[in-house]
């Protein structure tokens, strides 16, 4: 696969004695949906945090569009066009839905500290633009009616959607989804899978960490399997489903 959008090469990360991520190399092709599966504590979220810059790797490197971004601070990573959602949704509880999504535009706006203090005309224009864009996205996800509500008042499913909206507001090239289906009911999950596909079709590459097998198998173009911090298998869903190693991990040795 020629020039992957995101690539990790031999990432390492220890926590105390625990080897959370061990020599993991994965590549995410442009415009694809790639899923990373694995049992709890397999190091999936750690891998995400290593990519997003929340924690620094102790070895290996991360490449985005061929350019090394290893151990960049999250805000720089975000500025490159890498958006993420969190396993437990991390909205700004005391901002309205709209404000939350507007926050997503932050990296795409300029006006700084002083300009804000003096409230120069351009800051006004800019914030109007940010807001317009945010509303657009809310409409697109059918959240427009919630715009004015404080995020903390929303039901869980909605919150997740808002987090999506916030991520999309960044107009990212790559979207990192950490267990997007966790805690969603069956209908919400279906809605979600449709949404993810739609996002992909817009040319936004997605990297998903997910437990929900059916979801993964239906939407993803490629799957990588982590176990105890190591990559044990990689390939299209079909082959992964038949991979004895994977089956052993998921169903125990006797099925192998």
């Amino acid at each position, binding site marked *: 696969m020629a020039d992957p959008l995101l690539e990790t090469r031999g990432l390492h990360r220890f926590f105390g004695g625990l080897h959370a991520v061990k020599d993991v190399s994965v590549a995410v092709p442009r415009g694809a949906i790639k899923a990373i599966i694995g049992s709890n504590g397999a190091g999936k979220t750690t891998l995400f945090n290593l990519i997003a810059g929340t924690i620094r790797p102790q070895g290996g490197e991360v490449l985005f569009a061929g350019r090394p971004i290893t151990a960049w601070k999250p805000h720089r990573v975000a500025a490159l066009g890498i958006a993420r959602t969190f396993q437990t949704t991390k909205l700004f509880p005391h901002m309205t839905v709209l404000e939350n999504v507007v926050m997503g535009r932050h990296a795409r706006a300029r006006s700084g500290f002083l300009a804000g203090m003096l409230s120069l005309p351009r*800051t006004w224009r800019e914030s109007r633009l940010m807001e317009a864009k945010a509303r657009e996205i809310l409409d697109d996800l059918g959240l427009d009616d919630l715009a004015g509500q404080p995020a903390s008042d929303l039901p869980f499913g909605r919150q997740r959607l808002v987090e999506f909206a916030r991520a999309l507001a960044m107009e990212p090239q790559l979207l990192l989804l950490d267990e997007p289906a966790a805690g969603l009911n069956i209908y919400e999950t279906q809605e979600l899978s449709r949404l993810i596909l739609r996002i992909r079709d817009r040319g936004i590459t997605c990297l998903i960490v997910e437990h929900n097998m059916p979801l993964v198998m239906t939407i993803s173009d490629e799957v990588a399997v982590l176990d105890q911090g190591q990559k044990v298998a990689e390939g299209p869903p079909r082959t992964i489903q038949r991979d004895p190693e994977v089956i052993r991990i998921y169903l125990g040795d006797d099925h192998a």
Partner: protein
Amino acid sequence: MILLRRYAVVLVGAVAVVLLQVVLSAWGATYYMTQITMSAYYSLVVIGLCLLMGYAGQVSLGHAGFFAIGGYTSAVLTTFNLIAFRGVPWVDGCRSLGLLVARQDLYGANLLTVSPLLAFLAAILLTSLLAFLIGLPILRLKGHYLAMATLGFGLIVYRLALGTAVLGQADGISNVPPLRIFEGLEVTGRQPFRVQNYYIAWAAVMAAMILGINLVHSRAGRALRSIHQNEEAAHSLGVNTYRYKLSTFVLSAAFAAVGGALLTHYNGSIGPSEITVMKSVRYLAICAVGGMANLGGALLMGILLNFLSLRGVFGTYDDAVFGGILIAVMLLSPQGLLRMPDWREARSFLCRRSHG
């Protein structure tokens, strides 16, 4: 409408200020303005602190330090006598440029010192610079560790002021000249200038308020609030959290410096008692009583509580009453005495456990 709503506090404040002046003048009780003016300068610190703690969510137990750096810088520059250096070319040069001014003190001694206006600017710049240098390392700390670091900073400033001869040691610096902004308008405690200074002080406060309000409602302000509500998320959205914290820290320090310098010129002196931990604590506490992320509340409380203690209303029970108010508010109405529309903010700050 939005604008009206946004600047309501300032408008109301301005009206109240003028009303008060009229009432007091009519009543022939203009002397109350002395303490109101002083309180106004103190509340400049509180406004800055409110931005730092209420919005950016960073604790500071050292803001008296910045207040003092501002005050002391201005005081030293305007009292340090260069008369001995007369004839030294650069001194005369500065003098001809108007950077230095000659005057006589009450006892007829000739003084040649830096011009107050210049000293004032220097004070603000120096304080901002120091705030930047201090903030650079310590704003990486969180919670109690940040509290300790800022506390430590305050202590260091205190010790330096007490130990250094040029800073007057225990006696501080007196005989600080008035700050003449232009002919006929000067920051001084002299009685004839009372009303004038009342308005100068309030002008400064209102300016600070407007800047603060603008900031809060700007992109930067939103970013600050986001840092405060969920730092990790904010960071992942491209908010350079560290940079924003630092900017706010410097800004609040600058506000403190303005207050310190102006008050020093107004009082004609400054002493180490301005740098005690208790002072820093007072600022922080007033901010909390005002409702943390609530500029209006902070301002009102800043004026009120400082005014009361400057009047010595509670006599020897001053600190006791202060502590009482503090606890009462924290326990009974954590979001401050006056609930402003953004009380959710305040509550979010006061009720969310910052751990984990």
